């Protein structure tokens, strides 16, 4: 990357460097995306081609057979719905709760503000493995009072994921809320809007893009979880979520790779769509959160 001192050759040389960078970028993208390509490819391959001794990186006879298998034989639709319910509930609740918390932390001054902020961060630092066992017992006791939130029910997963997604959500939202100028609140107060009205009618819509962007992280977290789904949903197979559903395609008689990959593909689509929709906001949101 040596740059010659004179002007003319430098402009001349910039081009090859640029082309090289672009080629590298495309190569990196291809390498990174290869497992993904393999997943989709296997999902569309006819059964006979999947475990052949001469694997090919393409197929001339794509089929929906694997997807049909996933939806008919193994109740995949039900698991998919369960995952959607859990992730949606977590996203909506965490939006509401973390928005309120972020407003309190950035807009209002009160004693102990910094301490509370630190407590929220520390909550995020406790590794899940230290909590799995007591949470299991906690959910068992919750279940004897309110079955919907106890073991073997989706509610237990919602509660846990909500708690683990809140700290980061609050932390990121602070940046968005802080970006709304203070003068706006003064103006609203002059116009006779109270604090509650200002928060919901002015602040909330202004922060909405940030809320959506950060909800993608809560969504990914809840959607992908394996540990809690495995420990909390023990016997009620009808309440399992997608990551566990994939396990049902592993059979002692031989793993059904076509179905596994079709299931994985279906599982990735909602996250991918969600992410593509919000990615611009997410990037500016991270920049805002880091700047404070």
């Amino acid at each position, binding site marked *: 990357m040596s*740059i010659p001192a004179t002007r003319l050759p430098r402009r001349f040389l910039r081009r090859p460097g*640029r082309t090289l*960078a*672009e080629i590298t*970028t495309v190569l*990196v993208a291809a390498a*990174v995306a*290869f*497992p*993904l390509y*393999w*997943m989709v490819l*296997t999902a569309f391959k006819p059964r006979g081609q999947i475990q052949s001794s001469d694997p090919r990186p393409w197929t001339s006879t794509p089929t929906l057979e694997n997807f049909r298998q996933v939806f008919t034989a193994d109740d995949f639709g039900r698991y998919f719905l369960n995952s959607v319910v859990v992730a949606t509930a977590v996203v909506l609740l965490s939006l509401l*709760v*973390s928005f309120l918390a972020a407003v309190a932390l950035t807009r*209002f001054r*009160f*004693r102990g503000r910094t301490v*509370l902020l630190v*407590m*929220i961060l520390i*909550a995020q*630092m*406790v590794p*899940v*493995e*230290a*909590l*799995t*066992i*007591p949470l299991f*017992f*906690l959910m068992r006791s919750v279940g004897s009072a309110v079955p919907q939130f106890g073991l073997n029910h989706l509610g237990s997963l919602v509660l*846990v994921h*909500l*708690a683990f997604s*809140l*700290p980061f959500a609050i932390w990121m939202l602070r940046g968005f809320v802080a970006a709304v100028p203070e003068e706006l609140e003064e103006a609203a107060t002059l116009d006779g809007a109270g604090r509650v009205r200002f928060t919901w009618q002015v602040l909330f819509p202004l922060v909405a893009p940030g809320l959506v962007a950060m909800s993608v992280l809560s969504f*990914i977290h809840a*959607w*992908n979880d*394996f*540990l809690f789904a495995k*420990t909390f949903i023990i016997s009620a197979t009808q309440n399992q979520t997608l990551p566990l559903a*994939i*396990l049902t395609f592993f059979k002692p008689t031989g793993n059904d*790779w076509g179905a*596994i990959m079709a299931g*994985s593909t279906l*599982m*990735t689509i909602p*996250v*991918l769509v969600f992410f*593509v929709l919000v*990615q611009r906001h*997410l990037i500016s949101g*991270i920049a805002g959160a*880091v*700047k*404070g």
Partner: protein
Amino acid sequence: MTKQSTISRAEGWRRRGPLLPALIFTIVVTQVPFAFTLYYSTQSWNLVRPGSREFIGLRNYLYVFRDSQFREVALNTVILIAGTVLISAVLGLAVALLLNRTFRGRGVVRTLVITPFLITPVAGALLWKTAMFDPVFGLVNFVLQPLGLGDVEWVSQFPLASVMANLIWRWTPFMMLLILAGLQSMPTDVLEAGRVDGAGPITLFRELTLPHLRRFIELGVVLGAIYLINTFGAVYMMTQGGPGVESANLPFYIYQRAFLGFDIGQAAAMGVITVVATILISTLALRLLFKTFTATREAA
């Protein structure tokens, strides 16, 4: 005077009000269970022997520290986290620099590069185990074949490194995303001024870009480490912690002890040790996070 202070106290609670749901909720679900973990860790309690539960003080900790498997697993966890975080931060920086330029199809390439982070860990781990590392069908051996290395059984011969490769693949996009956010928030006039002053691209990068990115990289490292401590699906799907405990990390080992071995007391003790170690290590990390809080409008 007294009246005013009661008013301000009421006002103080009104201001804290919106924060309370989040605070109470996180405390109930994360801090209270931790108190229980502390309590369980002082009990000799195995679910296989009902009625055998008794207080044994710190003996569980003694057993755990004497357990050579636990020590190996703890070391694995540290290697896994540190290795993954560092390598994916470096790779993430490189990819972010490549993607932070305009070229045709940038949107598509960027989305492609991010997908590993979006794919479910369980599916991602499976793909690495089969599409990449399978000794017969895998891409890695296919690529290495011309070099005469085509018959390595990656997952069984290098289990920890295999899991780490999968994790790096998954976390590089996350790092890249954060660093890209940093690059895009960088004021262009500074770079322009540096260029006018005759600085070469390497100097510009070292003197201007890297200091600006520092906080973003720190944030990525801290957040990445926090999430990586909880890695479970990848280990479960790729190696089941084996052979032996060669590729087990703490979440997996504790899960095994508690829900397959039913030894609640010892599993809880391991959990407590993990938390203490995490807090010790992350005190440093927290301090970094704080810098991002306090140094508010210093870099505009």
